[in-house]
């Protein structure tokens, strides 16, 4: 790849035959001289301090939306909503039952009226 002949300096040992590769191997070796310094010992501590400071700045409700506990919060909210609406349930059921009874009674009355006509 690096070489036009599709060779790479990282794929070669010191006995490189391709002249283009030889040039690139020389560059590769020169670049080895550019060492990087060790990371400062306090790097992690500084990072964790910044993370802690950032967490502390977050509003309380944001933590409730944090994915790992979000389902628990959602279930709790759903339970509260259901609890609030449950008292309305029996009344509604009663209303439906009453309507059903009235409807059946009306049907029976209609049937009573129709029977004499058939006779």
């Amino acid at each position, binding site marked *: 790849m690096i070489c036009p002949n599709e060779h790479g300096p990282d794929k070669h040992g010191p006995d490189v035959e391709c002249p283009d590769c030889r040039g690139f191997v020389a560059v590769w070796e020169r670049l080895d*001289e550019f060492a990087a*310094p060790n990371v400062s010992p306090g790097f992690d501590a500084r990072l964790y301090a*910044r993370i802690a400071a950032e967490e502390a700045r977050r509003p309380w409700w944001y933590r409730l939306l944090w994915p790992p506990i979000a389902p628990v919060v959602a279930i709790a909210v759903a339970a509260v909503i259901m609890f609030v609406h449950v008292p309305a349930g029996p009344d509604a059921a009663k209303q439906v039952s009453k309507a059903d009874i009235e409807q059946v009674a009306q049907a029976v009355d209609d049937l009573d009226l129709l029977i004499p006509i058939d006779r």
Partner: protein
Amino acid sequence: MLRVREGDDTSFALLLERHRGPVVHFLYRMVQNQAVSEELAQEVFLRVYRSRETYEPTAKFTTWLFRIATHVALNSIRDRKKEKGHESLNDSHDEMPGGAERQVADRQPTIEQEMVHEVRLREVRQAIEALPAKQRAAVLMHKYEGLDYAQIAGVLSCSESAIKSLLFRAYETLRDRLAHMA
């Protein structure tokens, strides 16, 4: 990273342990200043931490991490160019030798050897610094961090063939600039 997303702080510590060195070293070679590179690396890991909730493993983690690092480095280089015009970061020459762990033989180098080494090192640094930012990032990821073409392509949002061509041009430029050192 997926475990970090689930709130596992130990996994974040492991992730930091594994990637701290490569990220700081990459950034150091990009901006050629230890204090700045560590500050930028802090920014990278903070962004990783902030993104943990929304992280989706669409690419290899290293690719994603170096994409953030490259973005941060390129922004920093651009901002510094704006601030300081064309002032070279290499002018802060006193910063490098003490900070870098130099690989030397067991025997003590002579003053002459030391000076030769300093000159060669400065030339390598200047040659790298003179590369266009994208070429520089590609070379540093390829040469020092061992990323393959697909990963570098992912980081720089290019095709693999574009990366191969980019790297070829970059190494050719370096070969020309460093030819006298051979």
